[in-house]
């Protein structure tokens, strides 16, 4: 390479890099300062590939063997938070068939159909806790007596407590649907309850 070639090469590189940097600035700052989801990537635009999720190390060769969430979730019914999957519906529709026992695939859950209505002090509707949806995943001893006393009214709790990982928050907010899905628990109108 002679002097002129080197100059042209470096100038081209510099110009393109400058354009790129300006592009980044334009997109981030001037594009739209008030996007709808300012701090969140909307679910549809989320790139869930394991190599891009920022907790997996993309240099790990084994990543290619692991199932991608997008592929696994494709046939399942959607939801508004968490994994954006309605796991209860997925189970009820038979789209997933989780084994209840890791050694015996034929063993089935002993589900119990009992709804506990909990009165709520604030303006939200009362909470109807369905044992049925919980007992297909869990057995009694998972919650009783270590998390909840098996007695109606014996388990006072607050949303603050739940968000700190106590009571319902042991699962809801970490694995089961998060507390942003208010109306999945707060379902019972107070007017009907007070009769």
């Amino acid at each position, binding site marked *: 390479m002679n002097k002129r070639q080197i100059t042209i090469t470096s100038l081209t590189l510099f110009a393109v890099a400058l354009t790129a940097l300006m592009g980044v600035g334009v997109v981030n700052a001037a594009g739209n300062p008030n996007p709808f989801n300012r701090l969140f990537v909307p679910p549809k635009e989320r790139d869930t590939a394991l190599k*891009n999720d920022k907790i997996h190390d993309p240099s*790990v060769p084994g990543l290619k063997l692991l199932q991608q969430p997008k592929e*696994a979730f494709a046939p399942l019914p959607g939801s508004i938070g968490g994994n954006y999957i309605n796991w209860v519906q997925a189970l009820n529709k038979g789209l997933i068939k989780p*084994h209840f026992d*890791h050694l015996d695939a034929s063993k089935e859950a002993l589900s119990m159909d009992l709804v506990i209505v909990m009165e709520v002090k604030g303006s939200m509707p009362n909470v109807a806790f369905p044992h049925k949806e919980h007992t297909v995943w869990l057995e009694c001893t998972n919650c009783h007596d270590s998390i909840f006393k098996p007695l109606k009214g014996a388990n006072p709790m607050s949303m603050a407590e739940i968000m700190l990982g106590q009571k319902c928050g042991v699962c809801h907010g970490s694995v089961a649907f998060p507390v942003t899905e208010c109306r999945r628990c707060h379902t019972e109108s107070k007017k009907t309850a007070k009769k």
Partner: protein
Amino acid sequence: MSSRSPRFGVLHQSNITMFFFSLALSFMLLAGGLFGSEARAEYGDIVLNNYSDKNGIRPVIFPHWFHRMRYACKSCHSDIGFPFKAGGSKVNMLNIISGEYCGACHNGQIAWSVENCDLCHSALPNTPTQVHNSVLRAPK
């Protein structure tokens, strides 16, 4: 004219690769700006780093979503004895190999066995023990 043409010839031939390389670079920069740096792992993904970093191996990622499609919560949280707390069990390679915790299934019979190190030990080094996207923040 005759003095100009070689200059353009040079520009065209030697810089075309460089041009496309820089173009690719600028797209990468643009993509980096568009999709910030926050983690986008699945809700409920668990990072276990009680011992990994200290022992020079990548921390473990346990994908809750993958396992809950195949097993009810009860089978791991009752039968196998995992507490409802990230990093709350004393799981290590020794008890996995002797069939406890992950080793109850990851034994080469129900699921792939322990020689596939990097299928579990796949997190970026220094990722703290946490439930990803939990309302409870990861300890600093």
